[in-house]
């Protein structure tokens, strides 16, 4: 089993949205970042993977199983945006609940993480800040020997310090080669920091699924005027966008393009810029 998660041809139709033939994989020991604008289909993909919604077509293999059963769920840690635990409960009560849900629940790990995050054990969750709730959800996800972590917008709305703590934990988690993470986020800087692969979803379709290093090291943006733009070979353009005073052109091989167009100003493209060009640009 090379992949912790394999998704192939995943399709789901709603009245006003279609998740169309989504395919990508989460290799063992890797962090895969799922990016896309609001409503692009990130959460729908995650919900279909977790069996929260019924898929119409496609194939999902999770930790080697096509059916997501109880044994598989034991090994998956899920963190959604918000705590998703009854607010009346305290972390101590959640321990009692989880102890009776997960066979592999590790009380020591859970309380160690609560201590590490300085979370009060007896305080009701409703008195927690958003960051504290997120830390609690992460503590739960880490306390039942998960092999695959799935995080849906788990770091959105958190301050940079807490986000950095969480990102460090995620990086620590994948030090074990059997562990993998699928993380959806709007905060592309977080993914630039930790992800090994990037999946970009736009209007329900996967635009690209590439190693992050390839995107960061090979992709580039040519900023040029109209005459220089006209002189570009169309096959070299991935996407382009016309701004007020310049053209922005995304190219997939920065080095090769620099040799081909020595006068062109080609700069490395950030993930944010790549997304913006795909979403707002043309081809």
């Amino acid at each position: 089993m090379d992949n912790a998660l394999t998704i192939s041809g995943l399709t789901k139709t709603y009245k006003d949205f279609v998740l169309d033939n989504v395919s990508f994989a989460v290799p063992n020991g890797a962090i895969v970042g799922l990016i896309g604008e609001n409503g692009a289909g990130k959460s729908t993909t995650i919900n279909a993977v977790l069996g929260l919604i019924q898929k119409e077509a496609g194939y999902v293999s999770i930790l080697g199983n096509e059916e997501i059963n109880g044994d598989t769920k034991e090994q998956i840690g899920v963190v959604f945006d918000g705590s998703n635990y009854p607010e009346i409960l305290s972390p101590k009560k959640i321990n009692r609940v989880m102890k009776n849900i997960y066979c592999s629940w590790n009380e020591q790990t859970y309380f160690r993480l609560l201590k590490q995050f300085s979370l009060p054990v007896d305080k009701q969750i409703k008195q927690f800040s958003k960051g504290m709730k997120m830390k609690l959800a992460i503590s739960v996800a880490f306390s039942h020997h998960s092999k695959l972590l799935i995080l849906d917008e788990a770091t959105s709305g958190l301050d940079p310090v807490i986000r950095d703590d969480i990102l460090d934990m995620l990086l620590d988690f994948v030090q074990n080669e059997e562990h993998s993470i699928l993380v959806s986020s709007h905060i592309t800087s977080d993914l630039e920091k930790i992800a090994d692969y990037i999946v970009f979803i736009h209007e329900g379709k996967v635009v690209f699924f590439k190693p992050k290093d390839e995107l960061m090291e090979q992709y580039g943006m040519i900023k040029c005027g109209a005459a220089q733009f006209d002189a570009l070979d169309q096959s070299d353009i991935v996407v382009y966008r016309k701004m007020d005073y310049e053209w922005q052109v995304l190219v997939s091989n920065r080095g090769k393009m620099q040799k081909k167009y020595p006068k062109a100003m080609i700069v490395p493209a950030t993930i944010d810029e790549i997304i913006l060009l795909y979403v707002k640009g043309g081809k």
Partner: protein
Amino acid sequence: MKGILIKDLYIAKSNILVTIVSLIVLGFGLSFLLEISALLVLAPVASTTAVFISITNDAASKWSKNVITMPVSRSQIIGEKFIFYILLAVLGIIVALVPCIVLAFFGIDITFYSLCLYGSIGMSATLLAGGISLPCAYLFDPEKSQIVFMVSFMASTGIIAGLVLLVNVFIPVKDNILLVFHIVLAISIMWFIVSYRIATRVYQRRDVT
């Protein structure tokens, strides 16, 4: 399933305590006005409100979504709510029996017959209402399901009256009141089981987001 039952008990704890105290106080208070065993009609119905508090809470906190990602099947999630409902109804009956037993010690006339009769009516109403409202709690949004919850208790009294009239066609009610209400209770139990099966089937394919 034990874990989610513990979670529901934590959520409903204060509500259960308030219901227990209210039923005991009401029982002693009513004893001056009415036949105390009539409390058995009200007790199971009143005590099951905690289930709907837990369902509303699950929806509000998005626990319903979270729990599906845990090693608990959808049929276990539904089954737990039905079991929780039954447990609370039985707890209601037990609590209502407390003032009955205490007052019986003080010489108030309470017959086994009346306890069985009112107990059967109370449990029948509770099971019929639960059989209507529990599946609806998973079909509709929280606001609609709360309306269904309130309507279901009124509907259950109508259904009981209808069932009694129906049984009366075969067995004269006047001479066999207890037997007739036991038949109604048996039908209510069957309805509750059928309702559980329907709820499980519906929830199995439902998108939870």
